[in-house]
């Protein structure tokens, strides 16, 4: 057996349950689970006492910026950040330059991810050419090239007829369309959530209605067409209620929420720091509580980071000129465990096997930890409290709002296809 890893003393948590067992990994797979495994033949021994051993996390929503904005992040640096965050798979968003709307660009992204070798990078495709919202991308061609999730993220598809056609066309293919729900005409010039704070701060606001209207529209289009839809970064209490109803009606609707939407609010914009500028914006405590409740009762299936790196000089502009977005890969676990009052297994589910199913990667990621299964694993300490040190981030950018905030839960080791990508908190390459 080659490249043997012995993980001892940890608590295994996967979709089958929770058990105190040692794990042996070899040749890319989990080969043995037992109490008191011998580690004498292992190339690496991981002391996982006090830690959880779970399937590696899957991020449905990562901006790797390459091609086009390599000064903010590259597929390599983003993969490294993902691995440090416990991720073995990320879905790369298509708002690159050129857009991920052709096989050649998608193949480039996939190949760059493979070369970096730190994370399984699965490119998404855009729904429309250039994300312009006018013409459908070659969905079937991209699906044949391995793309499972399609979105115009950065924007939502504004034209209801085009969205209907996209869903009808997608219904025949084994793919899922994902929507960034924002009615653009209602958010022109908006810099933060529309409410009491924006009125005081003198900033144009993004009303919750702009998200809720598109969530509602797409749920009804799903009802009409039968095609599945995934709602990206759900941020409003109203939106959570709509998705809850849709699921109760048995519609194929899934949803995700970001770590920042489970703990940060619009009050933070008082200092006008662009670190808090994001789309959809930070909203009120009532919205934060609704998103938490949505994760707790399963209305929201997954935690997805919307990792959005921006080079420092772009964020150091007046608030209305700064690009929206925050880093997320390296802090997702720490923020989630600090702020979600849910059973640990449910949080792990929202980070791994549930997003794996939505991303169409459940054959390799989020797997039960059993002999014969691919070894895509993470070992983390669920109790360790820590704070972000920007200089130590693997990401090329530094736009994280979590500096100086207590996070809970630290990734110690990440294993991708049986190879360690993160060892004792540090990337192995």
């Amino acid at each position, binding site marked *: 057996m080659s490249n043997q890893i012995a993980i001892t003393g940890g608590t295994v948590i996967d979709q089958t349950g929770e058990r105190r067992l040692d794990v042996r990994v070899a040749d890319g797979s989990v080969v043995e689970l037992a109490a008191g495994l011998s580690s004498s033949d292992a190339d690496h021994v991981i002391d996982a006492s006090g830690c959880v051993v779970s399937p590696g996390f899957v991020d449905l929503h990562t901006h790797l910026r390459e091609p086009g904005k390599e000064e903010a992040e590259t597929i390599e640096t983003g993969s490294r950040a993902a691995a440090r965050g416990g991720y073995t798979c990320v879905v790369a968003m298509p708002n690159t330059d050129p857009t991920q709307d052709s096989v050649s660009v998608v193949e480039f992204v996939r190949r760059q991810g493979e070369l970096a070798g730190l994370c399984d990078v699965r490119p998404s495709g855009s729904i429309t050419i250039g994300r312009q919202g006018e013409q459908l991308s070659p969905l079937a061609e991209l699906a044949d090239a391995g793309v499972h999730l399609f979105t115009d993220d950065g924007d939502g598809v504004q034209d209801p007829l085009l969205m209907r056609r996209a869903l009808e066309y997608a219904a025949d293919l084994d793919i899922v369309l994902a929507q960034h729900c924002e009615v653009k005409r209602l958010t022109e010039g908006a810099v933060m959530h529309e409410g009491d704070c924006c009125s005081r701060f003198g900033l144009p606001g993004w009303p919750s209605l702009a998200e809720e209207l598109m969530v509602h529209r797409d749920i009804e289009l799903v009802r009409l067409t039968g095609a599945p839809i995934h709602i990206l970064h759900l941020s409003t209490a109203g939106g959570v209620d709509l998705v809850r109803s849709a699921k109760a009606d048995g519609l194929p609707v899934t949803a995700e929420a970001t770590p920042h939407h489970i703990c940060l609010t619009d009050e933070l914009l008082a200092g006008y*720091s662009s670190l808090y500028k994001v789309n959809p914006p930070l909203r009120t405590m009532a919205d934060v509580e609704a998103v938490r409740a949505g994760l707790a009762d399963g209305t929201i299936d997954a935690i997805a980071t919307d990792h959005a790196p921006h080079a420092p000089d772009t964020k150091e502009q007046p608030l209305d000129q700064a690009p929206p977005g925050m880093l997320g890969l390296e802090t997702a676990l720490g923020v989630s465990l600090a702020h979600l009052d849910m059973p640990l297994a449910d949080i792990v589910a929202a980070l791994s096997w549930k997003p794996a199913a939505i991303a169409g990667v459940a054959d390799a990621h989020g797997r039960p930890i059993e002999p014969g299964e691919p070894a895509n694993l993470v070992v983390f300490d669920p109790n360790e409290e820590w704070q972000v040190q920007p200089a130590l981030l693997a990401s090329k950018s530094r736009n994280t709002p979590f500096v100086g905030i207590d996070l809970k839960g630290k990734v110690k080791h990440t294993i991708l296809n049986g190879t360690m990508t993160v060892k004792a908190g540090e990337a192995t390459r």
Partner: protein
Amino acid sequence: MKHFRSIEETGADGLVRLLDLADHMAEVNRRPNPKVPALRGKTVCNVFFEDSTRTRLSFEMAAKRLSADTMNFAVSQSSLNKGESLRDTIETIAAMGVDAFVIRHGSSGVPWQVEQWTNAAVINAGDGWHAHPTQALLDCYTIRTALDRQQSFDGLKIAIVGDVKHSRVARSDIAAFTMLGADVTLVAPRTLLPPFVDVPVAIGLDDVIENVDVLYLLRMQNERMTESLVPSLREYTSRFGLTPERARRLPEHALIMHPGPMNRGVEIAIDPAELPGAVITQQVTNGIAVRMAVLFELLGSGSNLEENA
């Protein structure tokens, strides 16, 4: 007081302190030689990212009356397009050794963002829609002196009319007037109000005109029509404009104020010269005194105002 960026940040005590100080400055301005050495050796840099002749001149005169040195950095749109970031602009000027920045910018929040790039005092000459605290100061000072209200504005009825939503003047005035105890009413269509408002609103000027102590008119800009905020300027004037007919129904003692520049025929459809209660030119004069007060408060440690420069 390290900075003067918004009325809310300064607070009621600071506000009153500055108004009292403005009395001394007004006295200086009445002297044959209206100049004191209080800020000699200090440098004040006006960094205006938005055009504004009157505010900039007012600050420049205020600084010179206190014997400070002034610099003007007028950032035209083209130099911004060359890619010099806000941070680089501020850090470069700060490195030259200024004691205070007077900043006007089209984006709300800039006076707070620049704090990380300089140790100098920051004075907000207007940021986006958000705040214009020296305007609020001079407005309070004008009301204080014209209506002899040195102690407080308790019970004073002030109506602010017009485009509150986009107005930094309105936001700062609402904060300052209510801090001093006045009863503020906003008069505007819903489309010209911020999403959340916590003072009373009247839907037409006729609702308040006979019962007001101070009528504060905001400028109504042409652009607002293209944004579907009002159907037409004519309709705006018919509901909200100070027409000669409405002016006749104003109480005799009522003040009429405007931050300038005026859109004649829109928010004010009568020549101010025909309005006995109009104090618009006094507002401009008072602007010098209050800006001197701010500069002195922030930069004039220990100096006195008695000696002449």
